[in-house]
């Protein structure tokens, strides 16, 4: 028996050790967020106080009346839905084809979509930006939409393709035998069955676009400042509460959307690759 394994066979010690490790892990994940939330409602928090000396919401009104932030909110509200719609239009028909049709190069094309994940991201964005200069797409709305598409290809194709492939063929054939047209079968049988996967892909795309900061910074600057882009300037040139309030506002849509869609998201689609640092 190994010298390290004695405690492993002694349940109380093992349990205590596990709980300590989990507590450390929980603290590692949560405490920075908790302190951020506290900063968002702090008016004065001087070192070495563990909590703010004075609470208040002064910075919230500052944030809500700031013109830059209003402008950035509008860019974000415009970009994320556009990216999601364009991505759906580009990828969903392909997802259906990958699931249902047989054609040359099918496997190669399906796998090559992964290339967008296999490149180091910032290098790819810079190379795209250099190419976009040539096409006058730098600093334009459509340039940002295009560069953001690259991150959506894999989940907007792979997740719906898996759901299309999982639709029972017998149901479709039964509907056909009852006299439904192919289009009617698609819209009344196939699509509703595949919907949970499509919803997950749409949510991930929307959130990915809403939180995207690197590609937008490289391609969109200086005109297109979405909310995450504004965060780069806020964190370096404003006091902590401003960044904190802004962070809470920025994270809010993600939290709300993910909570609303929890039942779809828990279906095992998440490991398809959510985001990279």
């Amino acid at each position, binding site marked *: 028996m190994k010298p390290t394994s004695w405690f492993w066979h002694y349940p109380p010690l093992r349990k205590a050790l596990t709980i300590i490790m989990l507590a450390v892990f929980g603290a590692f994940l949560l405490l920075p967020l908790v302190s951020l939330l506290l900063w968002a409602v702090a008016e004065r928090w001087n*070192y070495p106080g563990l909590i703010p000396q004075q609470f208040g919401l002064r910075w919230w009104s500052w944030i809500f009346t700031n013109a830059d932030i209003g402008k950035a909110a509008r860019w974000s509200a415009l970009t994320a839905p556009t990216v999601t719609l364009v991505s759906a239009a580009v990828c969903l028909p*392909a997802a259906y084809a990958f699931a249902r049709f047989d054609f040359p190069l099918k496997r190669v094309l399906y796998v090559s979509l992964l290339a967008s994940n296999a490149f180091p991201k910032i290098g790819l964005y810079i190379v795209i930006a250099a190419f976009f200069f040539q096409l006058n797409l730098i600093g334009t709305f459509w340039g940002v939409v295009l560069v953001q598409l690259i991150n959506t290809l894999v989940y907007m194709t792979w997740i719906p393709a898996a759901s299309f492939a999982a639709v029972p063929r017998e149901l479709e054939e039964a509907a056909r035998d009852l006299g439904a047209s192919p289009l009617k079968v698609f819209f009344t049988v196939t699509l509703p069955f595949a919907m949970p996967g499509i919803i997950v892909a749409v949510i991930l795309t929307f959130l990915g676009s809403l939180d995207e900061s690197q590609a937008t910074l490289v391609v969109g600057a200086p005109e297109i400042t979405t909310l995450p882009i504004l*965060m780069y300037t806020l964190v370096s040139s404003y006091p902590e509460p401003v960044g904190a309030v802004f962070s809470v506002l920025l994270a809010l849509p993600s939290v709300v959307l993910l909570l609303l869609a929890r039942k779809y998201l828990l279906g*095992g689609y998440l490991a398809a690759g959510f985001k990279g640092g």
Partner: protein
Amino acid sequence: MVRAHRWSAVSRARSKEALVGLLLVAPPTLVLLFLVVIPAWQAVTFSLGIVPADNVAYNSSLNLIRSDTPTLAVFRRLFATRSFTQNLGLTFFVTFATMTLLTLVSYALALYARFNRGRLSGLVRTLYLIPMFVPAIIAGYALTIFYGDHGVFQAALNRMGLPYHSPIGAGWGIVLGQLWVSIPFAVLMLSSGLDGVAEEQVEVARDAGASFWVILWRILLPLNFIPLLIVLTFTFIGVFGSFTIPYLLGGNAPQMLGVSMQLNFSAFRQQQIAVALAVFSFLVCAVAGYLYVYATTRRQQGAA
């Protein structure tokens, strides 16, 4: 499906299907061509000194090296600078430190969530997903103010009379941030692999007297190898090509390559250097990228 009985009709239906299929997959393929293949190819030629006349960004680059035939002059000059060597060293340090720590932490969490039932393990399963709700830029900011000089962490240690030297602005600070943002994907991926390991297999080995480490090494790791490979390669590429976390949590010098690339591209107006750095990062990540694609397709086939 195909109701025709004659061969010609069957093959006609087949080629129609092939045509429709290719048409439907054309849009994402074009996006890939337009956003990966063409820009990457242009970048390679530009970093070899061939400057296209119609590209403003390339022609306005400071310290431009121009050549009619491919030359390695740009790379030679880049490799000769001390800051590049230091930046590369930091980038490798952060990348491998993150991979090691992430594997240890997320494997432990995935194992715990897989082989324990109850309230606590349910809590863990929710806990490790939290960073997914938080954009990287917010995570980076939260970590900066928490672990930074005169942050809450230092205040807490101070109460206990412990000394503290903030890792923010140095390599370990970046590792901390990368670890924080990478945990959900790593644990989800490893968990999905461990779900495929039958409980009986572990029970049988345990009854035969195998210790925890033997079970881990001889049963769990081999059966869960592909997900581990995906986590390792994805983390390597992700951290090597990261910008936001090192930008917020790192110092001014040395910098990670991603930060240096971005600054060279925009602030310093040295687009050729930036693009050469990008091409260099593609080369470094090529092996990891290949293994990532291989492992992901293997996993897909296993799942199908």
